[in-house]
């Protein structure tokens, strides 16, 4: 007769091997390696928690130190490769296969290990895809997660950086997997239960608090005049035009400039209460002045941001906070919100081609996607209407005999040249070459051209929704590509024609006086200004201070 509970029996066998190591659910840090060697079986699918912020760094180093003779051939299914240990696993033969979303700083080393045949990549995902697969065909057998605190029953308190923990633990615990948590402290009572203890098998107090990267802090001191100009264009030419109220921003200085122009420039245009009210966004320090000015009504977050804890606690009407007062973030839910409940995504990229496809892939680096593609994609499943969605849909459908439907605004905001005169517009994305050299099935495209509604550069805004042919689309892109080789090859007559039709709009067409585009327009010009705007509640990491 078929065994319908083999997974349950396998779980019991694993737990039985740990009997000498755990006291209740608690395992001493010194026994972390032994615990992993006892629990893991060769070929296991393992999720090692870590995103671009919180990292289960102690468990990562413990896993990288296991004996490859005992534990090998692991299949890592994890959001981000951020720590050297994540790749040490493959170098030591402990793991061989990888499904992930984003590799950031490890992108170069990852490409090399793939080239050396030490890593076989299943696929590079967006976050929602990878989380989705946790519940379909990539369910972890063992998950190693990070939390702030645990009580004796294994209840976990994540603090503001809940991030990916709920989705990882849910997928693992309810399929008879093993969940091991590293925590900063063991307490009698957790301030709130972010993960119920019944879903957690082992708790290890880490010798050091887990690492958190303040990834979303942008020092306003580094915002340039050109970025101020582009932010003015975004506000007047897109936010006001489409009445954008539900949105997600990228993490660059260009979008930080928009956030810092809301209380000044947008307010001067009478836009308070008319744009930028609801956000799917990490608690960006640069958003503080707009919150204080009354622009922002709500913010739901993927993760938190270091230094924002007290400010968030003092603004519970705006942020999602627990009964303990601290932020509750949730990457999976915020990604879903960003995809389905937002009318606009705006972010930067490294390269845009003539069809509007954009990519951050560069040769020799496998960077991955993270969250941008989920938010920077038209939500084809969306059914509810909003003025912004309907207007974009009307523009996209004009002159076509199709049933009325809305469109998401997906804006790529790029300066025509990046630093060192690297053009942002190219005939062919580097992604093609990367795909060929790494044997990938698809070129890694961050945002597909047919999802992009607008391209915004310092030269102007190209509204791709209004383009009717591939040729128009190409000229609209060339028409805002400035002095890049792509821009210089424009058909000047056609570009002027597109401008007459409002497909391309220059700052002067939008009634923007370029001379006003100075840093004086920023609601904060330094981190200290942000601290002051927060009434002293924002406590920036020391590397951002100049006092």
């Amino acid at each position: 007769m078929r065994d319908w509970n083999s997974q349950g029996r396998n779980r019991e066998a694993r737990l039985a091997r740990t009997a000498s190591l755990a006291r209740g659910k608690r395992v001493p840090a010194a026994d972390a390696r032994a615990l992993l060697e006892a629990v893991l079986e060769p070929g296991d699918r393992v999720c090692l928690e870590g995103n671009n912020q919180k990292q289960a760094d102690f468990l990562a180093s413990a896993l990288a130190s296991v004996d490859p003779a005992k534990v090998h051939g692991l299949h890592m299914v994890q959001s981000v490769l951020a720590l050297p240990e994540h790749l040490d696993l493959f170098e030591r033969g402990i793991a061989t296969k990888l499904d992930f979303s984003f590799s950031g700083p490890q992108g170069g080393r990852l490409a090399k290990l793939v080239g050396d045949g030490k890593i076989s990549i299943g696929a590079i995902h967006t976050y929602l895809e990878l989380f989705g697969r946790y519940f379909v065909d990539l369910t972890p057998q063992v998950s190693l997660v990070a939390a702030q605190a645990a009580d004796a029953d294994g209840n976990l308190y994540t603090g503001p950086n809940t991030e990916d923990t709920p989705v990882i633990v849910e997928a693992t615990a309810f399929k008879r997997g093993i969940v091991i948590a590293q925590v900063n402290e063991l307490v009698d009572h957790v301030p709130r239960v972010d993960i119920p203890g019944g879903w957690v098998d082992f708790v290890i107090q880490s010798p050091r608090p887990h690492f958190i990267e303040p990834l979303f802090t942008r020092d306003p001191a580094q915002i340039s005049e050109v970025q101020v100009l582009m932010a003015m264009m975004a506000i007047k030419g897109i936010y006001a035009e489409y009445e954008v109220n539900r949105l997600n921003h990228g993490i660059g200085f260009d979008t930080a400039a928009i956030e810092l122009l809301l209380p000044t420039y947008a307010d001067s245009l009478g836009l308070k209460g008319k744009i930028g009210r609801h956000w799917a966004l990490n608690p960006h320090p640069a958003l503080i002045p707009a919150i204080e000015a009354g622009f922002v009504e709500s913010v739901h977050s993927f993760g938190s941001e270091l230094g924002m804890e007290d400010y968030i606690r003092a603004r519970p009407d705006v942020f999602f906070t627990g009964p303990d007062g601290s932020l509750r973030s949730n990457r999976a839910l915020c990604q879903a919100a960003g995809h389905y409940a937002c009318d606009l995504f705006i972010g930067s990229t490294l390269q845009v081609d003539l069809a509007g496809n954009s990519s951050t892939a560069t040769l020799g680096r496998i960077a991955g996607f993270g969250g941008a593609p989920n938010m920077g994609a038209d939500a084809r499943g969306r059914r509810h209407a909003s003025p912004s969605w309907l207007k974009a849909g009307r523009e996209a459908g004009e002159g076509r005999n199709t049933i009325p439907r809305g469109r998401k605004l997906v804006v790529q905001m790029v300066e025509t040249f990046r630093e060192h005169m690297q053009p942002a517009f190219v005939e062919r994305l580097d992604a093609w070459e990367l795909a060929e050299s790494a044997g990938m099935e698809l070129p890694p495209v961050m945002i597909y051209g047919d999802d992009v509604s607008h391209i915004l550069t310092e030269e102007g805004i190209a509204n791709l929704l209004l383009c009717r042919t591939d040729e128009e689309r190409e000229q609209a892109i060339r028409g805002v590509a400035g002095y890049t080789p792509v821009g210089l090859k424009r058909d000047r007559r056609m570009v002027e024609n597109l401008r007459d039709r409002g497909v391309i709009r220059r700052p002067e067409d939008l009634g923007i006086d370029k001379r006003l585009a100075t840093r004086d327009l920023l609601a904060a010009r330094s981190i200290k200004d942000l601290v002051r705007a927060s009434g002293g509640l924002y406590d920036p990491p020391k590397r951002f201070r100049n006092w």
Partner: protein
Amino acid sequence: MTDAATHSYYEDSARERLLGLLDPGSFREILPPSERVVSPHLRRLDTPAAFDDGVVVGKATLGGRPVLVAAQEGGFMGGAVGEVHGAKLTGLLERALDERPAGVLLLVESGGVRLHEANAGLIAVSEVMRAVLAVRAAGIPVIVLDGGQFGCFGGMGIVSRLCDAVVMSEEGRLGLSGPEVIETTMGVEEFDSRDRALVWRTVGGKHRYLLGEAAVLVEDDIAAFRAAALALLDHAPDLSLAALEAEHAALGGRLERFGDCRDALDIWARLGIAEPERLPILDTPTFLATVTDKRA
């Protein structure tokens, strides 16, 4: 638009600072950019030169009183002193001996000697030092303003301390070796130059004010710098031997009192300041109120 009432000194370029600081329309530049007195060395090193070699010098009035003034541009090579740059400073100071203005203002922003020009820069800085002392000896106050993004280090740090008074904002920095130099020579364990909070509490305006090296601490507002400079024009320093000996004794006493401190926080605690860790975040008026009578 941070605060319509103030205009940031920190954000401005050297030329913008002069416009905001001096009486409107009064500034007359000496060796303006159109004279093209540029560095003779940089071109040969395949490095772009600036038409004013990174320092603007000239005559103006401040509150109706004649002053000579120099402003270093930190954006050009970190305000570093090359041969021409240094000669412009020295020339301005020597001119003061002839013209006897009400004061000389040095808007410093400099990492010190321009390494590209090596010995020429070193000699230039020593000439500036000598000229400063000559101007002071002639009874003309030399006033330093330090509130730019690049701080004031190296030879210009020494020059600043040779002057009659230093006006700083808390953003300003004043020191001999810059943070990166200390880290490189002493190791990151000794001094982590990326720990900006550490950098500022070690060489920033508030600490310099508490130690007495900055005579005045102002907000990052060009009008506040102007007011402080104006007030200092009437400050007549006591250059008698007795006064100098007293200052030396005070410096010796300071070393004795704080020599074993590992961090500015230890010094602040020893100065009797309650909750010294709060000092960095206080705005300037609150800070000044908090440390009244507590300076070294």
